[in-house]
């Protein structure tokens, strides 16, 4: 199952589906970074609202995506982590340290807009 990536101005929006396999996640990791380069994007929003399980592999991949995109000089915001998923992540010992998160897509865009303003 491929993850759709939308281009919204300088921002790319990747929307996760519920049943992503490791292979899908690996593909997304490469795909996103390539698109950031291609479109000279300034930020990526990864919307995980539909994800019902965030295990160690998924959260490590998200962290790697964010760090790769940071190396490109762009920002990443993870949006839509469900309360139950957040609870399970904490129990499991998973953190997304150093990665920006926001409540939902709207909040994520607002966060980036603020950030773009201050850097311009």
């Amino acid at each position, binding site marked *: 199952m491929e993850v759709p990536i939308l281009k919204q101005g300088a921002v790319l929006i990747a929307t996760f589906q519920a*049943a*992503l*396999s*490791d*292979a899908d996640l690996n593909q997304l990791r490469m795909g996103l970074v390539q698109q950031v380069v291609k479109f000279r994007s300034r930020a990526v929003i990864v919307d995980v609202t539909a994800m*019902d*399980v*965030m*295990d*160690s*592999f998924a959260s*490590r991949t998200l962290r790697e995506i964010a760090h790769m995109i940071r190396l490109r000089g762009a920002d990443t915001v993870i949006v839509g982590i*469900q*309360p*139950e*998923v957040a*609870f*399970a*992540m904490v*129990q*499991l*010992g*998973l953190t997304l340290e150093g990665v920006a998160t926001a409540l939902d897509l709207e909040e994520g865009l607002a966060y980036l807009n603020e950030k773009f303003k201050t850097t311009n």
Partner: protein
Amino acid sequence: MSVGEIQVAIKSDQDIVSARQKGRLMASEMGFSSGDATLIATAISELARNIVSYAHKGQITLKMVNGTNRQGISVIATDNGPGIPDIRQALRDGFSTSGSLGLGLPGVRRLMDEFEITSQPGRGTTVAVKKWRQ
């Protein structure tokens, strides 16, 4: 309750997704809260991932179990892989031999109510966990 026991063969990353979806469905059908169903599905995902990473193939068995006055779900992950030479080390946070986060087993223990592991080097590993319905 339609199904009392489900077996899922684990041999690829697709099976990890399928095992955790079946586990969530079973937990929901048994009346587990959605939060607990998420914990169970996450634990299954980690156990299935351990099978794929270390043993390449194995099996997850999901079962409804009855306690004295409670009901629960049992998840048993078995493989005939290399086994774990030092279980105590494998249960410590941060330990990993496959380049993963090393949170698998101790994390799964925190997600579930009961946790048992048996492993024989060269013979395989069985991890049996349970969660009781609140």
